[in-house]
């Protein structure tokens, strides 16, 4: 069991969004948070990550480390991709530049390692952010719309990376508006059912 959520309710600015959310995520599972725009997926995910706990009530129990990638990419536009990953604020291990270049090559960014991130295209920026998935050894990933801005090849890469991760005993919670990407192995949590 990597994450246990019981009786969680979410509020945003005096408005109750969700209530009575219960689920547990075990190793090897992929969970997709579903629901229409504005239902509270991002709010819930930020709450699970502990970034914003103010409107949250209920119990959230983590077992082990996790990695959170939000809507925004947490990249400094004036730094290069390598520097961005090397000095990333939430890394708890230090990757060497060669490891980082490796990771960047695996997200098809070979040749862009040392250019300022601000001069990359939208999808390339997203790829730089996703390269953290190769550098972290956290067990649980919390990803907010990770497929945004990626082309077909990028989406396929991410899918295979997720398969690999859960195959190795990790777990992934992600939000997305697209249809199920991981077939039968995927658990869906439709937040529409918990909306108040």
């Amino acid at each position, binding site marked *: 069991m990597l994450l246990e959520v019981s009786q969680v309710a979410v509020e945003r*600015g*005096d408005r109750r969004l969700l209530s009575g959310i219960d689920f547990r995520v075990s190793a090897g599972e992929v969970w997709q948070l579903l629901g229409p725009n504005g239902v509270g997926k991002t709010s819930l995910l930020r709450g699970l990550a502990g970034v914003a706990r*103010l409107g949250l009530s209920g119990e959230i129990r983590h077992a082990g480390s996790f990695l959170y990638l939000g809507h925004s990419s947490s990249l400094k536009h004036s730094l290069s991709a390598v520097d961005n990953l090397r000095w990333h604020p939430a890394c708890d291990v230090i990757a060497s530049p060669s490891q980082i270049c490796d990771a960047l090559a695996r997200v098809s960014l070979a040749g862009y390692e040392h250019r300022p991130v601000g001069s990359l295209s939208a999808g390339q920026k997203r790829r730089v952010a996703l390269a953290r998935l190769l550098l972290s050894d956290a067990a649980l990933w919390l990803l907010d719309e990770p497929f945004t801005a990626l082309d077909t090849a990028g989406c396929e890469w991410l899918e295979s990376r997720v398969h690999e991760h859960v195959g190795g005993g990790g777990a992934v919670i992600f939000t997305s508006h697209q249809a199920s990407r991981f077939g039968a192995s995927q658990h869906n949590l439709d937040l529409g059912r918990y909306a108040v």
Partner: protein
Amino acid sequence: MWTIIHKMGSPPWFFRFSGALVRWLLPLTICLLLAGAFWGLLVAPPDFRQGNSYRIIYIHVPAAVVALAGYYVMALAGAVSLIWRIKMADITMRAVAPVGAVLTAIALLTGAIWGKPTWGAWWVWDARITSMLILLFLYLGVVALFEAYENKTAAARACAVLTLVGTVNIPIIYKSVDWWYSLHQPASIKFTGESAIDSSMLYPLLVMILAFYCVFAVTVLLNMRAELVWTHRESGWLKQWVGGA
């Protein structure tokens, strides 16, 4: 002790209690204010050096004293809010800030008016005056920060942090401004405090100080009640209250 804190932290109990309190504190305050003002303005003798202008003291000093004390009330509420996360402390903080700001402004304004006949200038950069001005800014900062946040719980936390840091700073400001003045301002300006104040002038002053403390209490309580009625409009106890009243 704990029961008291818990009771104070419970909105229904506080609402009932403050209602009763305000009901007799408000008339008392008005009586005290009128009596003190009457006594100080019309009955007390003039000061032998400043003449009648000294009568401003009966509002100036009470306002200044209560304004200073108010900051500590706010800081206390801030500490309680940060440590125990009691909603009532948030509301207290929010209620005190504007009252403190107004009282500080009154002290400044009356001081400035008093300065014209006494010193010949509306404004001088005296140590005490300057530190009062900075106190006003501290209060206004809290008010503005509260307004700036959409989420009021977050606003209260932010204000609590600010208030606590400000509390550490108040003695430092007070002292440093004092040093600043004593070093470089020739002693041309002196408060009249050196000669012991005559009792015929002191008693009305004491009445007025008490009255201003009451004003502080009443306005803070009223502000808190207004806030409570709004934030708890959905809750059962208030609906019952409204229905039963």
